[in-house]
């Protein structure tokens, strides 16, 4: 187990550096980080040169990347061009987005898995077909459409929620945005659980459990569900990273000042330190979530052992 974790951590290192290098190149080489600083006008050459040397942009790219990474490991993510420390932006943005992601994952787990179990056990029946078509429709509606429509109906027309949330939103303010963020994944979780349950429902161990006279509830929850959850857990695990990065749309619609908001502002203003910094953290979250998922396999299925 310990050796497995160490091997996985070692494998993550090249992926971590590769991804951060890629995003660093995309931001710094393809775009001109100075371009956004003087408004829509071209910067005056002398100012531009001064800014370049101030931010170290006159050095070769690999050197810039190494300097940046060196700073990151000492906890210095640089300053955004407006003078604020990127770490300060992170300290306000991440708690909000983490709350939003928790709400979304809870929706995925509770609604998605329940619907999946219900439909998987009744394959081919009207409930199953209806839910299956509904999930397709939900997957087809892009997040920005779900978000705007729910905002229009619940917020503007019926006044059930406030159309936008406060500066430091609580969990209950984030219920609707969380549902919007979760919607597409929720439908995927339902479909995955359904397929997995339906496949395992015919397994011998289920028949044995039923033959032993175990109550149906126990058969479904302890035997069937536990064995069917592996693909679902895999999906939810990888989704955590995607949700945090994908919150950009949801956060924009409900005016939530989280990671997505900072990334959006950073990209629009070509604020490279902000963008690279936030994406670096997102990549770390993504890699960590993947590792945790792999370790969860052994919990769900004791036959899986890590050497």
């Amino acid at each position, binding site marked *: 187990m310990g050796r497995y974790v160490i091997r996985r951590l070692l494998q993550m290192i090249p*992926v971590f550096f590769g991804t951060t290098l890629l995003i660093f190149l995309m931001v710094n080489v393809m*775009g001109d980080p100075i371009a956004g600083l003087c408004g829509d006008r071209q910067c005056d050459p002398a100012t531009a040169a001064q800014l370049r040397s101030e931010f170290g942009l006159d050095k070769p790219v690999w050197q810039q990347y190494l300097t940046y990474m060196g700073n990151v490991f000492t906890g210095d993510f640089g300053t955004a061009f407006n003078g604020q420390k990127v770490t300060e932006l992170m300290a306000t943005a991440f708690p909000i987005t983490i709350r939003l992601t928790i709400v979304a994952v809870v929706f995925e787990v509770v609604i998605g898995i329940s619907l999946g179990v219900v439909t998987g056990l009744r394959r081919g029946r009207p409930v199953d077909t209806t839910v299956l078509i509904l999930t*397709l*429709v939900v997957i087809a509606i892009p997040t920005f459409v779900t978000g*705007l429509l729910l905002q*229009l109906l619940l917020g503007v027309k019926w006044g059930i929620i406030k159309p936008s949330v406060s500066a430091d939103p609580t969990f209950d303010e984030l219920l609707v945005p969380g549902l919007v963020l979760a919607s597409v994944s929720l439908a995927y979780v339902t479909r995955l659980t359904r397929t997995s349950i339906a496949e395992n429902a015919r397994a011998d161990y289920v028949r044995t459990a039923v033959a032993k006279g175990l109550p149906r509830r126990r058969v479904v929850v302890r035997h069937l569900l536990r064995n069917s959850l592996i693909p679902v857990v*895999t999906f939810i695990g990888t989704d955590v990273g995607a949700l945090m990065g994908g919150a950009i749309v949801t956060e924009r619609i409900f005016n939530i000042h989280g990671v997505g908001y900072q990334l*959006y502002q950073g990209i629009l203003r070509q604020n490279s330190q902000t963008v690279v910094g936030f994406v670096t953290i997102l990549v770390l979250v993504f890699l960590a979530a993947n590792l945790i998922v792999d370790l969860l396999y052994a919990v769900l299925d004791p036959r899986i052992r890590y050497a």
Partner: protein
Amino acid sequence: MPDTTALTKSTDVPAEAQTPAATDAGPAPGKPRSLWSDAWHDLRRNPLFLISMVLILLLAVMAIFPGLFTSASPRDANLAEHYLQHPKWGNFFAPDWLGYDVQGRSIYARVVYGARASITVGVVVTIAVTLTGLVIGMLAGYFGGWLDTILSRITDVFFGVPFIVGAMVILTTFEERSVWVVILSMAFLGWTSIARVARGSVITIKQADYVVAAKALGASTTRILTRHILPNAIAPVIVVATIALGGYIAAEATLSFLGIGLAEPTVSWGIDVSTAKDQLRNAPYVLVIPSVMVSITVLSFLMFGDAVRNALDPKMR
């Protein structure tokens, strides 16, 4: 490590597995149908497939010949006469059928002309991504060893970049954001899932007896890859690609909605939704109509992909 991107399992067995059932139902008794004709046999009877086919054909015609659907121009703005004029639901297919937007442009015309950008982006990105992913996945899966290690790590690296964020970063660097720039930015980041599926599929196929036999008979690597591996490994790739197509259309609309995808004067549903959100309170139809259009389009391609998956993967039945 299990592959998380493939929602389906490899489908290289059904050809043999299906033969007993196929022989008594098929047109030529005794002659087993191939995976592909078996899939086609199923598809023709699937109502979801037929509905999605009709919708996709309609959208394709709309994208190629928008003039067939409306005589109005999507760029004719008449503020004096048509500012936010509400829809006349009875005037089917007339320019004022779905009302006018904040610039006095016919929403019906904009919805019709918007199909071209969406469909082009969806189709071209899917083709580009499938070709790139196939080549990388096949090389990694077939040759293994250090090539596999390098290509798989590169795939992991691209997979780790959040899709919308990455596409936005690339797009901001372009002054003119045409359809092709949007396609490029999405294809640059999107090929990873296809590469993973193709790699997995090739790894199972390359141990098959017919591949070993072809090698023993001295067939060249190119011939083995194109004639033996590719046709047998492609089914799961096609499934993932058809389902992804809908996703790319949604992604284009999302990028345009965020103001970083397509830009005027290109007519795009995403741009229209984005401009309409300022009128959310007094004219919600301006927002709802293009939104519904995006959703219907994505849904058609998803239903299509779902039907193809069910036909190619008999385990789901």
